[in-house]
């Protein structure tokens, strides 16, 4: 008796096991097999699904030729097909259909989770693994490598560590890492664009290990041609985060973090993105608190021992304003100016704060001197 492999619907908002034989004809021509439960699954997801289709005659193409890009970075499709996570790895609830139901169920009316010692142990383990993955991916950054190749590195390093790459299918995000180049503020989708000498690129790693998420990111310089402006925005972002972390301890209001960050950004002629915030993390990928990074914000709550959250300021060389690409993920600066981000995952302790995502001596990247 032979057992045929289990087939899952290729619709990112479905992901259910299926016995259907309905296949995408375009994929078939490319030598890919994408099975859908039914026509409804196919239709609903066509717009998203077609991003993996080749365009005849070209190796890569811009899927949004009519879009008014704010800078020089262009989306470069086709995307590679969804990467596989082996069955033995524990997956978060959204892995099949994209809906983080546990986040929707969790009470957001003011509660900020306080983690037990055991939970903290698990969170720390996940954070350590995520740091390893980030360092591995960062070490591969060089001119010519595509962000999709970085995604492959991240994906493989993550599953080697028996972990699920948290971004994968979170609200139908199609990749395992966010890669944000130059004017991209955050949530860039890894694609066929090769990194260029002089680019800056942010790798935002999150993974799910043993029931707990970890989340951290850094911005790296690509190659040797570092512009004065790139260094200023990257180093300012790095310093903003460091200053913010120093400020954290029990009894500190979450909203005050933004005051520290914006003050330093302004001193360096940079602005602070307001649309995206730091967040609680643990059993859930995103939960309370919200940590806004700009001054005079109204994020509620006060820090207490046992809370775990991220601070992840996005610092722009120009205006703080952001817009989204038509992929509904990629956030870019509205004026096309450079944007850099750093993110640490933090634990509030009795006496202060512990950086769960701390760098070590082997970590790639790191601060450079301003010129």
């Amino acid at each position, binding site marked *: 008796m032979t057992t045929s492999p289990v087939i899952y619907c290729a619709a990112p908002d479905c992901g259910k096991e299926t016995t259907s034989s309905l296949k995408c004809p375009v994929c078939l021509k490319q030598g890919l097999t994408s099975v859908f439960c039914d026509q409804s699954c196919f239709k609903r997801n*066509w717009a998203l699904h077609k991003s993996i289709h080749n365009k005849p005659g070209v190796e890569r193409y811009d899927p949004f030729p009519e879009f008014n890009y704010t800078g020089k970075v262009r989306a470069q499709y086709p995307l590679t097909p969804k990467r596989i996570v082996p069955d033995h790895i524990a997956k978060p609830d959204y892995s099949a259909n994209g809906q983080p*139901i546990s986040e929707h169920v969790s*009470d957001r009316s003011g509660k900020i989770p306080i983690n037990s010692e055991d939970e903290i142990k698990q969170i720390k383990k996940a954070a350590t693994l995520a740091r390893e993955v980030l360092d591995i991916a960062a070490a591969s950054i060089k001119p010519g490598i595509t962000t999709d190749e970085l995604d492959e590195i991240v994906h493989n390093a993550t599953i080697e560590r028996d972990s699920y790459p948290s971004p994968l299918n979170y609200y139908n995000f199609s990749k395992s890492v966010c890669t944000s180049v130059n004017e991209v503020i955050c949530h860039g989708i890894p694609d066929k664009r090769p990194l260029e000498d002089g680019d800056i690129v942010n790798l935002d790693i999150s993974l799910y290990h043993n029931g707990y998420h970890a989340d951290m990111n850094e911005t790296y310089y690509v190659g040797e041609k570092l512009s004065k402006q790139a260094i200023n925005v990257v180093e300012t972002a790095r310093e903003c985060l460091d200053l913010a972390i120093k400020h954290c301890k029990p009894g500190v209001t979450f909203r005050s973090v933004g005051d520290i960050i914006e003050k330093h950004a302004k001193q360096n002629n940079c602005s602070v993105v307001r649309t995206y915030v730091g967040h609680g993390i643990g059993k859930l990928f995103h939960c309370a608190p919200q940590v806004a990074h700009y001054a005079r914000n109204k994020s509620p709550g006060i820090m207490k*021992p046992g809370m775990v959250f991220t601070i992840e300021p996005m610092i722009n060389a120009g205006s703080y304003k952001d817009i989204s690409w038509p992929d509904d993920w990629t956030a870019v600066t509205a004026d096309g100016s450079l944007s850099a981000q750093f993110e640490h995952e933090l634990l509030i302790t*009795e006496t202060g704060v512990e950086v769960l995502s701390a760098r070590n001596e082997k970590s790639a990247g790191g601060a450079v001197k301003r010129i």
Partner: protein
Amino acid sequence: MSNTSLEDAKKVIHWIQTNQGFWNSDLLEIKESKLGGIGVFAKKDIEPTLKPELLLRLPKDSIFSAKKSSIANLLYEENLDGALALIIAFIYENHFGENSPWFEYLKTIIYKDQDNELILPPSLWTKSQKSLLKGSELEILGSLDDEENKSAYETACTFALNQNEISSSIPIPWEFDIQDKEDQEIFEKYKNFIAISHAIASRDFEIDSFHQVAMVPGADLFNHTNKPHVRFESVFDVCEMCGSAGPCDCIESEGEEDDEDMDDEEMSEEDDNEEGEDEEDNDNEEEGEGNIQEQDPEELSEHSDHEHSDHDHDDEESDSEPEDSDVEENRPIDEQMISKIEAALELEKQEELKQKKEQEHDSENKEMIMENDAGGKIFPDECCDIVLMKKVSKGEEIFNTYGDFNNSILLSKYGFVIPDNSDESINLGLECLKLKKTNKKLYSKQFEWWESKGYELMREFFNLKKNNCCDDEDCDDDHGNDDHKDDGCKDACCGGEGELPEGVEEIPNWTLEVNIDSTGEPNQLTYALCKLLSLNKLELNKFLKNQEKGLQVLTTNNSKAFKILKELLTWRLNQYDSEIKYEKLLKSKNYREKLIAQLIIHEQNIIKKSLQNISKKV
């Protein structure tokens, strides 16, 4: 009456303008009010013709509520909400001083007078002042009683101590620091707490089911009248978890009665995704969904209406072709079909673009759309408004209403009285109880019926006659304000705070419902009770036999009934201390004594008028 100074009011307006709010300075100016303090005045004649004129708009994200405060999570941990949570949040927030984003507003909330004395409610006035209130509605209805305040204070102090013990870096605010302190000092702190509570209670607004009560900068500058020009507006029914007025993706963890279909289905999705899930279960769920897809398109569409974000079958509605049978569903996908999908997508895109343009066009012309910190849009449903409903002339003060309150409530909650308050009412509950007690034999049967079911029957009877006054809109009309403002509709007809499930009415104790109004007329229930008591044995037996149909009997005029009412009123009048010369106190230099005199003289006048009316009928 706003205690804010003119200078502070200007700072509040500035705060509004720098916190995503709108203050209609073309129409409004702030000046000294005849009532004392300041008020909001019309800069020109304003006649809201087609729609109410927007005077103030503040995003709910900018108001100060317990949920928005720095200690929101601490309050959550200790299950504190409502008015007390707001007061505690205010006290903690004040300790952050300039670091609070509400600093410029919060510092305008003063609870001390010019002589630096605490502004306190009557429950904390001196003994002699309290004794002047003897016999007043305020005393009778328990507003001189301090027990509730004391227990709120204890709760607050315990909260502060707990939080400090958990983390010493969360300091105990001065007001709550009572450990190892002398009684005198504790009482001083307590009085501060009460003064703060009093200041906040006189300014808070009921916002919605998420924020509950909150401070709305600017909205609290309008003074009170019972014939208001403006209305406070806020969408009350929002998600209790995230505060969103529109669709959100929150799911209540315990399946509630509401929107059962929705919850159930989503919960089942969750089940689907859990690992190690029982096979059988899984199959069932899938079958269930299949059924819904094929057999109940209506339910499906309802679903996507509610659940705007990312449901499994969200876009199905927009796919125009009917695809009913399994055969159709599983037909192979071909190029032709793909081009059809592409065409549909293109159409959708155009449609969206068109809608967006229309929306922008709309918003330019009609609605004021605010911008949030990040430059995104804040729609009117996410804001609190003060809108003008009635014509005002240039130079006229523009009034809000805090509710149709009698002077006792106005004095204990807001610190002022209206000398000729037309919302005054005098309660005769205690007098009725006295009548019952002193005439046990005579009235025992009547009271037995009244208390066991007569009161509720009559209440229902009158309510029916009133044509269900409180079918929402009617109710609003009755009270002259449709706001969801604190106590906006405290009449028994409305079921009060709205905490009860819809349709279930909270029935107040009957003794609270026997009143005469400001014209001296008894309300229907009061007269019905008097009429009931006037029935002789024979009449009573007859009435009790035929009670369901005969309730009408209790509404017809009868001099014996008025005699009983007269007795009640006479007793009521005797509750006051006849030794006190209130007329003289009207001229007192002591502010509190003056208020007391105004309150009591007005009440006594009403009772006297009522007695006069009756003497004509007896």
